[in-house]
């Protein structure tokens, strides 16, 4: 297979990256932090053109890889702000603790998506949460295609008032799902904020015990540890289990209601419905069980017949042998006249 065409074939990508990052480092040395987001965006722009050239297995993996690289870039940006703030404090512990509070509080407010509304907050939450959030969105799309279609009254025929009530019930169930999703996302936000607090505590501990953080990767691993610990501390609570259960149950309730509306519409067009297919599958399984049971009985009967045939054959042979012996005795008797 030909390698994918690069959008800029004569462009030295590595050299351009080096020059860009040298400029960033120069700014940082001057005590100013700069966002690396433009670089990440450039990388993703390049990836959109290179992506179609990859086989399926590699494409998904590379998507996940690039997703995580955003975390790395984000942390670098935050670290730049932290280092910039800490550089003015020197080695004085109290001073640099105070200096880094600002960037850490900024991380918390970014995590909570303050002022952005609860749906955009999903997008704004910690990048570490992006993949689980994306995976949930994929799950929802797999099991709940076009949820909004249920509300298109113009497309769905039905009697007036009863149908309106069904639509209202659907709207209520959808609102309930959104509320449960918001509650669940709020929990995840609280966990994210707790993770930032843990990060602060670990940085303080590192300072106290003179364990230096020597690389960005070390900071990233520490960030992951803090998130997993905060998550583990919360996920085993009854509240979390309830929130999780309520989220799934709310989505299922809406989906069930949507199915019933769709079935009504299909029924009106004299087409197979979901319930109809379900009933069919149930009868099919019942038939399969019966057939397998008949097959086993049939096999047993055939075995019994074979055994009976073998026994019958044996009896025939014995009978034939017995008649043969009797005939010999009669023949001997006639010859000697007795």
């Amino acid at each position: 297979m030909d390698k994918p065409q690069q959008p800029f074939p004569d462009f030295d990508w590595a050299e351009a990256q080096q020059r860009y990052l040298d400029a960033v480092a120069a700014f940082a040395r001057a005590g100013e932090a700069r966002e690396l987001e433009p670089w990440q965006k450039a990388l993703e722009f390049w990836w959109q053109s290179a992506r179609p050239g990859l086989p399926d297995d590699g494409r998904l993996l590379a998507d996940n890889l690039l997703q995580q690289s955003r975390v790395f870039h984000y942390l670098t940006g935050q670290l730049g702000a932290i280092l910039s703030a800490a550089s003015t404090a020197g080695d004085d512990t109290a001073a640099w603790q105070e200096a880094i509070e600002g960037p850490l509080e900024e991380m918390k407010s970014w995590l909570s998506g303050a002022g952005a509304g609860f749906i955009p907050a999903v997008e704004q939450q910690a990048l570490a949460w992006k993949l689980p959030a994306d995976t949930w969105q994929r799950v929802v799309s797999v099991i709940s295609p076009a949820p909004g279609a249920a509300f298109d009254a113009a497309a769905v025929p039905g009697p007036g008032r009863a149908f309106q009530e069904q639509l209202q019930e659907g709207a209520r169930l959808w609102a309930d799902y959104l509320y449960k999703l918001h509650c669940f996302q709020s929990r995840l936000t609280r966990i994210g904020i707790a993770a930032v607090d843990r990060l602060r505590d670990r940085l303080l501990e590192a300072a106290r015990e003179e364990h230096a953080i020597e690389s960005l990767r070390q900071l990233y691993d520490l960030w992951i540890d803090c998130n997993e610990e905060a998550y583990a501390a919360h996920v085993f609570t009854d509240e979390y289990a309830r929130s999780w259960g309520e989220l799934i149950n709310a989505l299922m309730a809406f989906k069930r209601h949507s199915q019933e509306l769709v079935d009504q519409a299909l029924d009106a067009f004299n087409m197979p419905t979901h319930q109809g297919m379900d009933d069919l599958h149930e009868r099919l399984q019942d038939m399969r069980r019966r057939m397998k049971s008949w097959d086993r009985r049939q096999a047993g009967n055939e075995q019994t017949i074979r055994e009976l045939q073998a026994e019958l054959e044996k009896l025939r042979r014995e009978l034939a042998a017995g008649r043969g012996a009797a005939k010999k005795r009669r023949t001997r008797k006639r010859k000697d006249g007795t």
Partner: protein
Amino acid sequence: MNPFAMNAGDAARELFEFNTRMARGLQTLADIGDVDVGACERESVYREDRLVLYHYQPRVDQPHRVPVLIVYALVNRPYMADLQEGRSLIQGLLDAGLDVYLVDWGYPDGTDRYLELDDYINGYLDRCVEELRSRHAIDRVNLLGICQGGTFSLCYTALHQQKIRNLVTTVTPVDFHTPDDLLSHLVRYVDVDLCVDTLGNIPGDLLNWTFLMLKPFRLTGQKYMDLVDILDDPEKARNFMRMEKWIFDSPDQAGEAYRQFIKQFYQENRLVKGEVVIGDRTVNLGDISIPLLNVFARDDHLVPPDSSRALGGCTASDDYSELEFPGGHIGIYVSARARELPVAIAEWLVQRGPDLPDP
């Protein structure tokens, strides 16, 4: 003391190196193409609906007389047991002289919606055991269950012990309500009836999400950062992709079987109470008296060790052994130390071989 032994320039350089490795790595992924799985030769010897029973080509001249039937879970695909050369439980068992069969449950679709645990355990699994008994002209076979497959094997043995010589369970949940069982905790408030009545078969994607959410940051994040460090090596990259392929290759779950398993096992924890009902029969682990080897992974976050260890107090076997292996739920099969597992299992089975009187 300031804990940061680096400055922004160091961070920028590290990021540059990371990006460079990642860009090279993306090229590696493009060059690798699709990955294949499986190290051992096999043939299908029995088929029924979606199920395929595979017999693996023996790797010794005189394999052990009593064949071993591997029962995998319904969740995920069984090629984990034979992932690649050198990372294969099945290869290890074959090299140790065993005659190995494997049940592949297949990919359920809508027509399988109403399959129940009775169909799987007293139906499909029983007919696979019968197939082995017939092919080898023996009364009893060895059973090796993996994860949920181990739970199925326990239920099967409790109901049909006269057909089983020895039973091995690996990373098998028995007590589903241990304090550290996160899966059980998460499904506690899920209305399983509503889920199944709504979805029919349960999508594999939903199960994937549930498993990923047990350790979301490591499993959806850090893992890919680790990947960047190995992408220079195409072979290591291929190994990683094989695992990824398996992790996301999740069949849908037949609705009724899923309903029964989650309700009876995860929510009501009936197995340890002797209250699981399969078909019209109640499963009592106390009816198991044959030799039993229980293997579990020390760092298993999916099936906590205590969940597996609970088996010790449930059976009537006077030949019950436990084996703890370092590693996680999957690492026990594919990590560097995983080669010790099939050797240990084979030794245990051979010691309880056909020359001894029936248990």
